[in-house]
């Protein structure tokens, strides 16, 4: 069980990966209610894999993921569905359903899990789409939207069930700086006003500095967490070159082509 009431996610001794390949080893951290936690690390170090473990898509080899006092992996059937309704997920690609319009995508969970009348479902979906700046595209098909617009529609869909927790995988990837800043502001506003907890995988330093209450940094070599703290605390850490390179956007010396 969670030890403190303000802890909404608790990851305990999680070791996981794909098949025989171990990507994460003995991961431990907690996420507090209403905070914005950002998971960072170099490409291929397992940030997206960790997110899959957290949302229950990929069972870890060892360890536990507790969400709102429930052991996610031990739940099944109705309990699992109810727990899953407490969180929304925005996948890297947006993962909108290609055969539904944008507003139908957003309204889909409302039809399944609420007793809202048809017109009200459409209205709620439209309202959320306007929040993410897509009111004018509600009746278009996902294939007609740009990558950034698809991602914003996916955020609206993830928000529609008033989730307690939102998991976002690379929300800023492929977005222009203005849209990206808009997304950051929205995340902060939702977190501050509705108390939504955010767990975000991103590599955008500007976003990390703007929105993160706390950062968890994964390391490819040790396959575990090498640093945890506020962005300012991590920037101040000079002892570990991997952290310094990440936060100062410096290349790994072994990966650069020496031109001199």
């Amino acid at each position, binding site marked *: 069980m969670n030890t403190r009431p303000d802890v909404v996610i608790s990851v305990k001794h999680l070791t996981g990966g794909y098949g025989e390949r171990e990507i994460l080893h003995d991961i431990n951290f907690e996420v507090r209610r209403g905070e914005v936690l950002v998971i960072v690390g170099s490409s291929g170090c397992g940030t997206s894999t960790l997110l899959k473990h957290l949302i229950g898509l990929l069972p870890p080899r060892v360890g536990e993921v507790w969400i709102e006092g429930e052991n996610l992996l031990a739940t099944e059937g109705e309990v699992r569905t109810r727990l899953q309704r407490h969180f929304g997920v925005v996948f890297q690609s947006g993962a909108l359903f*290609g055969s539904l319009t944008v507003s139908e995508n957003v309204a889909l969970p409302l039809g399944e899990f609420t007793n809202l009348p048809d017109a009200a479902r459409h209205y709620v979906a439209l309202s959320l789409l*306007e929040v993410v700046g897509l009111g004018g*595209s509600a*009746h278009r098909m996902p294939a007609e939207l740009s990558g950034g617009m698809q991602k914003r529609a996916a955020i609206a869909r993830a928000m529609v069930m*008033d989730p*307690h927790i939102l998991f976002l995988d690379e929300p800023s990837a492929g977005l222009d700086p203005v849209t990206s800043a808009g997304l950051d502001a*929205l995340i902060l506003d939702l977190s*501050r006003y509705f*108390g939504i907890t955010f767990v975000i995988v991103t590599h955008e330093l500007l976003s990390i500095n703007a929105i993160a209450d706390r950062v968890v940094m994964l390391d490819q070599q040790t396959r575990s967490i090498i640093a945890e703290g506020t962005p300012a605390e991590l920037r101040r850490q000079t002892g570990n070159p991997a952290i310094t390179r990440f936060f100062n956007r410096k290349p790994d010396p072994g990966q650069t082509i020496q031109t001199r």
Partner: protein
Amino acid sequence: MGWILFPARELYTRKPMVETIQASAEADAHILEDGRVRVRLRGNLDIHTVGSLWRELEEQLRPRQTFALDVDATGLDVRGGGGLALLRYLRAGGFTPHAAVTVRGLPPKLDEILQVYEDHGLNAGSANVPRPPSIPQEIGSSVRALAGEVREEVGFVGIMAGELAAALFHPERLRWAEVKRLCIAAGVNALPIVSLLSLLVGLIIGFEGSKPLAQFGAQIFIADMIGFAAVRELGPMMTAILLAGRSGAAFAAEIGTMKIDEELSALSTMGLDPMRFLALQRVAAGLLLTPLLTVYTMVAGVLGGTLVLLSLGFSLPVIYHEMAIRVHLSDIGIGLGKSVVFGLIFSAVGCLRGFQTGQGPIAVGVSATRAVVSSIFLIILADTVFAGAAFILGK
């Protein structure tokens, strides 16, 4: 339209999270004189409670002629986007279209969010709902689209035929390793299903024909029927339809997926013509393997019919003699000629549909389906032309 940003962060205080679904929201409506209505909202308004409140307000407010609606939301705790949408709907006069609406008692920050919503215009999205076309319009555009498609397909088949003819003089234009791979995938691997179906169809025709022919003591004519049908019609047609369903759809799906993954664009930017690089090999493979498979189908069909005749007591020399009288070399030639054209059709149409693949995850499935439907349609159309020509020429 840009993002709608909620009010400045300083206004917020962290609120404890909503526990679960148990919370509820209620509305008390007080009807005053002169069409004025006062509504008091209270409770916790989240996506799970908003539906009941929405219906309640709909029932209480919609049937009345209301000129002024005064909403007291002092006791309301709004906990998400669903609640915001309901308040917005109330303020926009959604339940009371002719009434002036005032909403009191909202926390200032929530009031500010709603204001931002309204500034962006509620109906920005609804205004863009496309009007459905009328039935005559739909029929007209469908016929026009169909005619356009047939024209495109026939044109593409022609282009491919021209390209292949040119490749005869420049064999180095074809990537023969790829042609071989495609022949194996589309032809050799299709042998079991083609042979089984042809054999079974031969058996079916034999059995079905034996009873009526027996009434005239003419069961030996099953040999004529099977021989003629298998060589002139069933062989080429069945092979082509099977290949259209199996390999034509695969061509469309392969090229369609490559288009979605921008592999076709990559080919173009490298200076390689996707049509020559991808389609030509597939059409060449289709053209080579269809006649070969057709011969196989003919043999399997005849074998099926022969088995029926043997079971009826006819000897092999008799069956052979009867078939030899009826089926001429020219019939086999016509059957093989058809199979060449059919092979060209299914492979070219499969490629064309692949190139025409749209965007999104359903596009590849649509292309594969269209490839099969269009190929079968064109194959039967071409067969009709062959049959008409044979009739006129007396062949």
